[in-house]
């Protein structure tokens, strides 16, 4: 499955539903693509393979959101940040399970995955979030 699955964002979230953080790796130049893409953005090759990423990383920057669009209104205030995973790739997401005052740049976080609910509308992707490692 993993070798032939399309290198798409949809597939990234399908793997998330299986509890895995997966990226595309270019067989030609070795670049790891996160989000996965159908073509390598460094050498334009489409000879790719899936590679699983570690779920741990370091917080690069963060904010506490107080004004949100309608679908996130019920969560405010909430923290979001950008995390650099162990292999150097980055993902943004919510930071949960920690008091806002204790969030610090450089702290160790890990990805938790919430399985997707059966969505009535597009898209039916799972949510992942970060929590203290």
């Amino acid at each position: 499955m993993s070798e032939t699955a399309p290198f798409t964002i949809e597939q990234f979230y399908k793997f998330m539903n299986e509890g895995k953080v997966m990226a595309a790796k270019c067989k030609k130049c070795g670049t790891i693509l996160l989000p996965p893409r159908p073509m390598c953005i460094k050498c334009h090759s489409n000879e790719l393979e899936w590679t699983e990423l570690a779920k741990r990383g370091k917080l690069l920057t963060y904010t506490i959101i107080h004004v949100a669009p309608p679908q996130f209104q019920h969560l405010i205030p909430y923290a979001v940040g950008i995390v650099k995973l162990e292999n150097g790739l980055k993902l943004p997401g919510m930071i949960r399970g920690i008091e806002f005052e204790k969030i610090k740049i450089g702290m160790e976080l890990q990805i938790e995955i919430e399985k997707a609910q059966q969505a009535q509308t597009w898209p039916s992707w799972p949510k992942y979030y970060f929590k203290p490692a």
Partner: protein
Amino acid sequence: MIGKPLASIVSAGLSKFGKIEGLYARELFALAAKEAFERCPNIDPKKDVQALFIGHMGESYEHQGHTGATVADWAGLLHIPATRTECACASSGAALRAGIMAIMSGLYDIVMVGGVEKMTHRSTPEVTEFLAMASDFPFEQWHGITFPGLYALMATAHMHKYGTTEEQLAMVAVKNHHNGCLNPKAHMQREVTLEKALSSRVIAWPLKLYDCSLITDGASCLILTKPEIAKKYTDMPVHIIGSGQASDSIGIYEREQFTSLTAAKEAAKQAYKMAGLTPNDIQVAEVHDCFTIAEIIAYEDLGFCKPGEGGKLIEEGVTTLDGSLPVNTSGGLKAKGHPVGATGTAQAYEIYLQLTGQAEKRQVENVEIGLTHNVGGSGATATVHIYRRG
């Protein structure tokens, strides 16, 4: 050597910026076009204007797309080619550049470029959602990262790396509100104190209400000609001598760093090279202060100071109206307002006024060279233009 003119501004128009109730985008644009036509009676709109390029970000606000044809009709320019450019908040910076390229191609002698957005009739959560569409959907929007949130991520990183303070951010708001008071077309013509800005409610920490630009209705336009014929229409043309545009990853999380905008630095490099000028030559500038941190980062990306010294530059008063490099004399996006699609050419409108001595109470003395810096979304697009008095 100073670069040769690419195209020339012979006239410009701006609607009142603010909460303009009851007017559709197309009607706002007609007001801006009317001012441009009146300012330059030698232009016969029906006969002379050969094409229109219009920046407009979102059809969601009015449930109305196909902006090119719509506003051309309302501006009394029916049947000319009319094309919308969309680069989020840099939509009319891109329209300006499209107009310059259309003139330089030799296809047209005279074109109108402009921008429009009608936003205030929608609720703040709705506008927050529409603006977020200029950011990455599957990773940023999907996880609740708002547009202010993206700039807050940059602010936190800038504060952490360089020691930039919330006070320095607030100083940008104080300056731009002061300038806005001198601009009768500004949305917010009210001074704000440092204390008030710092104690305003949090939108996306560390950004507070007064760190954010306004949700505004407005339209702007310019009439561009081939440089050789500009003097036929006006004694006071403004030549565009540098134009740069660049892009970056739509998701900010993919970038190498969050303390500068690579697209803005690249666009600036192109524009300075074309103009044969350096940052030291710029005498007045309009920069994209969608958030106060964005103005600090703009100083650095445009080379007005070294990376990390933007906070110091505002603190030292360099960019105030009586400083050595006044920035956002119009009040900026912060006080003049930010009808997103209209912003790029509204910035050019202000520089046109400054270089032709028409900026009234906020006129900077003896300015000949100006710059505009227009950023789309969270920096995935940037345009930079450099202007010289003709």
